[in-house]
């Protein structure tokens, strides 16, 4: 009892410091910290099915966008608070991901084909969003501004957004860290290593993969609503574009797939790199994205297990 209490304090104090210190920083640093937290959270969610389960989903943008679109449409057209919409979004995404998972895993769509099916599902949603008037079409939706309002999930300063998203990211990382030794994650990793052997050992492969996908999708949906409320504007490229699917994958790879703290390491490096690249190529077309492409290729060829993998021998995290 006493030791578990100590452990909680051990986690709580650094978490509180992390959350509270930036409150005193300027807007620029807050923006960067919000981005780091958002990427950490999204990569952490993707990590469940992609890193631990080894199923390369290239369609997490669909979950992100569906979550954001659901809450925004409910708020815009029906005046329902995003605090309720966020959970409606989760339900919609859970249904969508269940459909996707049921189809993919029931018919044993694997590897490259799984990547392509998830990509196709994402594209389908993007095309629907572009061609539907009620969803704003390709112009997107600018949200009704309510000023500083807790019920409308709109805040005057970035501090509130920062506290929400960093708490989400840290809670997710800590939960996954604590959850890693569990049976579910062990099964998931066994499936990643060899699906047929896992099946032969009596693991219900379908059930484990299905649950992992749905859980990962539901967590991503929360980030979608957060991002929509943060920018107060949604359109198909920013919510459902290819980059929404690929960014979390890249962050995960930089940090180390399947590790608990990989997403955090990865997103600090990723966001830092992008900020530097952005300031180097100010105003030019696509300059920073050229470096982004190079970074992705370099990371996979030079250290395919990510930075955490590079230092794995010094830490207790195992693959």
């Amino acid at each position, binding site marked *: 009892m006493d030791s578990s209490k100590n452990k909680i304090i051990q986690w709580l104090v650094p978490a509180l410091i992390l959350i509270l210190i930036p409150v005193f920083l300027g807007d620029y640093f807050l923006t960067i910290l919000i981005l780091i937290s958002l990427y950490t959270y999204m990569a952490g969610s993707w990590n469940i099915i992609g890193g631990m389960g*080894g199923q*390369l989903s*290239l369609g997490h943008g669909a979950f992100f966008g569906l979550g954001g679109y659901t809450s925004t449409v409910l708020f815009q057209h029906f005046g329902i608070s995003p605090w309720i919409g966020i959970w409606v979004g989760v339900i919609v995404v859970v249904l969508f991901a269940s459909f996707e998972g049921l*189809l*993919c895993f029931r*018919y*044993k*769509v694997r*590897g*490259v*084909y799984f*990547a*392509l*099916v998830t*990509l*196709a*599902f994402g*594209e*389908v949603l993007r*095309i*629907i969003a*572009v*061609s539907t008037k009620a969803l704003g079409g390709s112009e997107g939706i600018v949200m009704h501004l309510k000023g500083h309002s807790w019920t409308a999930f709109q805040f005057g300063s970035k501090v509130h957004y920062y506290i929400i998203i960093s708490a989400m990211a840290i809670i997710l990382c800590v939960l996954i860290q604590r959850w890693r030794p569990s049976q579910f994650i062990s099964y998931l990793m066994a499936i990643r290593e060899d699906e047929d052997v896992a099946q032969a050992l009596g693991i219900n492969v379908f059930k484990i993969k299905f649950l992992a996908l749905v859980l990962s999708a539901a967590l991503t949906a929360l980030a979608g609503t957060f991002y929509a409320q943060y920018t107060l504007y949604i359109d198909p490229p920013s919510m459902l574009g*290819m980059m929404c699917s*690929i960014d979390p*994958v*890249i962050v995960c*790879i930089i940090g180390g797939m399947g590790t608990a703290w990989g997403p955090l390491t990865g997103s600090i490096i990723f966001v830092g790199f992008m900020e530097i690249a952005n300031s180097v190529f100010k105003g*030019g*077309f*696509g*300059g920073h*994205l*050229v470096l*982004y*492409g*190079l*970074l*992705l*290729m370099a990371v*996979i*060829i030079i250290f*395919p297990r990510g930075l955490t993998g590079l230092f794995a021998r010094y830490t207790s995290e195992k693959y």
Partner: protein
Amino acid sequence: MFQAEVLPAIINGILTGSVYGLIAVGLSLCFGLMGILNFAHGSIVMLGMYATYYFYTLSGVNVYWAILLVVPLFFIFGVILHGGLFRFMLDAPHNNQILVSIGLLIFVNNLAMMIFSPNVRTLQISFLGQGISFGESILSFSRLLAFAMALVMFSSLILFLKFSHTGKALRACSQNRDGAKICGIDVPKIYSLSFAITAAFAGLAGLLILPFSGVYPEIGDTFILTAFIIIVLGGMGRIGGTFWAAVLIGVAEALGATFMTSSLKYLVPFLIFIIVLLFRPAGLFVKAS
């Protein structure tokens, strides 16, 4: 109804399908025989279009003479790409291969954005608009030529793989790389060659498409997903199947466009893809084992 709407849609669909086929044929070689799902293939097509565009604007001769420049240039480009990048990925997990090619796609697209600017460039040549009139629509010569060249490219690739020594060696590598090595096949050389062919085909596809489409840096992304759909429908490494799948998708899209609002027609290939992948993951034209 049939005469006025469906028949032109089908013919248009076949022509569009052959364009998709031009792009998918290189991809099919790359995925089917080397196992690499190259997301950057559409970007190589885009580079081929820019090469053709600048060849035409700088030299002023008939645009199709660009074939003498584009094919050798992209052959060499393919050798470089293989030697500098994909050589390291042959034994890597599929996931890493995909992500490396996505990295290449982002790199090439944005480099093109920096160099060529995001504007759309089109060829302004009067004879390209001419063609055979067919009902109310005109089938332009450039599209008919693209169709004919697609047939030539597909059949020459099939013949190459079936009868030539190198083609047989390539198929042997795809079946069992170690076995091929034991038989004395120079595996790295064969892979380098087939990647070069892939890139040369991509460049040629760009050349043939440019006269009726125009080019901008992200045009590759609009093809690439459709091309993936086609090679999966056609079946892994089945060049002939790829052609039929391309025509099928082209016709389905054209028919979709006549019966649905225009932007929803892009959904048709994806829906076909999802349905086929679930029920016949080995491809439409492969007998279920």
